[in-house]
């Protein structure tokens, strides 16, 4: 089951992108998100595509992994495409079925919307593919530091995020294992009629939930016995150090945003 999870696992190819400070990567992703929200022309989209491809290639991770990352969202993309292309009535009429008319402007903005989505999803994969969860978390805690001023402790938040990230694969595995254990004793999800499946889903969710909370209990013991005390000072294993390259990395994003904004509002 975990096999299907592409995100949340890093692929170490040792490229330079891997060694960029996670805080820089996080900031870069936010900038990229902004850039994409502003994109509305083919030129700008082309620019963003080239930009994305350049980064994807420099991670030295096969492009098909990025494609896979976007796959789960294809339904959504089709939907966005259909809604956009049917609701915008500009340009010439290309096609009509009954009262529905497809305009060229609609088609193009529908395509742009769908492509934008694809780019967004596959590009953000760079972050997770090139950063281990620990580093990502550390980066997050760095980015969130200012929150302390409003009374939210970034360490606590990142520890919670860390636990959550670390346990998702485990809980998926556990779910799988309980399914196996039940299957091994004659209740096989795959081979049952629908109504039975529903019953089994409940008899699956309950032990998964109970099991997760039992895990929580044991994890508390384990953390306490390793000297964890809420709010006590801790040192950091992953030391983040900002270098010129990280600044450059962010600057490239700033430029992308600037150009795209310029293209939109001239």
């Amino acid at each position, binding site marked *: 089951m975990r096999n299907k999870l592409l995100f949340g696992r890093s692929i*170490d190819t040792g490229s330079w992108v891997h060694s960029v400070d996670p805080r820089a990567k996080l900031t870069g992703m936010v900038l990229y998100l902004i850039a994409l929200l502003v994109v509305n022309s083919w030129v700008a989209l082309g620019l963003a595509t080239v930009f994305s491809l350049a980064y994807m290639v420099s991670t030295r991770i096969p492009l098909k992994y990025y494609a896979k990352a976007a796959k789960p969202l294809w339904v959504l993309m089709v939907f966005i495409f259909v809604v956009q292309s049917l609701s915008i009535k500009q340009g010439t009429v290309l096609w009509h079925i009954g009262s529905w008319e497809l305009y060229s402007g609609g088609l193009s903005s529908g395509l742009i919307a769908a492509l934008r989505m694809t780019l967004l999803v596959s590009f953000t994969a760079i972050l997770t593919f090139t950063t281990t969860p620990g580093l990502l978390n550390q980066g997050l805690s760095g980015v969130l530091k200012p929150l302390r001023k409003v009374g939210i402790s970034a360490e606590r938040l990142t520890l919670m995020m860390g636990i959550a990230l670390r346990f998702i694969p485990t809980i998926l595995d556990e779910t799988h294992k309980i399914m196996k254990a039940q299957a091994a004793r004659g209740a096989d999800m795959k081979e049952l009629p629908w109504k039975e499946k529903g019953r089994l889903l409940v008899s699956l969710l309950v032990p998964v939930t109970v099991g997760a909370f039992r895990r929580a209990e044991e994890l508390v013991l384990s953390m306490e*016995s390793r000297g964890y005390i809420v709010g006590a000072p801790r040192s950091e294993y992953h030391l983040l150090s900002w270098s010129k390259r990280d600044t450059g990395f962010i600057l490239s994003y700033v430029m992308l945003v600037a150009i795209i904004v310029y293209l939109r509002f001239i």
Partner: protein
Amino acid sequence: MEGTKLAYDLQQVSFAYEPEHPVLSDVTLSITSGSWVSLVGANGSGKSTLAKLLGGLLAVNAGKIIVEGTPLLRETASLIMPRIGMVFQNPDNQFIGATVEEDIAFGLEGQCLPRVEMVSRVQQYAEKLGIQHLLSKHPSELSGGQKQRVAVAAILAMEPAIIIFDEASSMLDEQARGELLHILRDMRSNGDYTMVSITHDAEEIMASDRVIVLRDGTVAADVDPDTLFSDDALLNSCRLIAPYHIRLIQELERRGIKVPPFPNADKEVEGTLWPLLFNK
């Protein structure tokens, strides 16, 4: 006690998960600093429960636990617990980090060690337990024995004064168990550690200084390993079986062949059995 410091002093400790089923009753014992104690007993005799009490993870219902001179109470727990490291019976649920490396580092971060020191400890203990090649793995990608080794490494790396092992070698292969035993022996001769080890493994028991036998929630015996393994009635009552070489000697003796006691350490029969077999 004159001269020797006590790591643990338990006075009439009782505990129950549910009031109607007492698990430990009136346990009184003390453990000197720097010693290696084996805690043995049948399944369900209360070993893990006692270990959790010793580690400050459960609170006694009655009695007192004094750790290195300080009573273990809610208020003092935060001072005492950092001195105690504990490896649990089930290695599966004690992972905190998302990778083996981060997991070993978790305890070190809590000790506020500088980064250089953490990195060197992680490497050092990963090497000691032969898990360097697993450092970047997620816990759910490990086999049972690998999990157990990581759990041990994570605790040893913290170098706590008191270490409690709850069946830390139960899923290790013969080879790895030998290696772990070797590590424990080293730590023992180093003298800086107090070790309490729950185990069913005869070799491990033989290597320790002292054996505390639990039966039905009370201390049934408190002896040295040799005495334990020569006392059949005691062994039986706590469902233990003596190591192979001791049973062999006993069996030979039953048949009227006298054998001097011989060490098991390197499984060498030669030094002891041959003279017997030839020089009669």
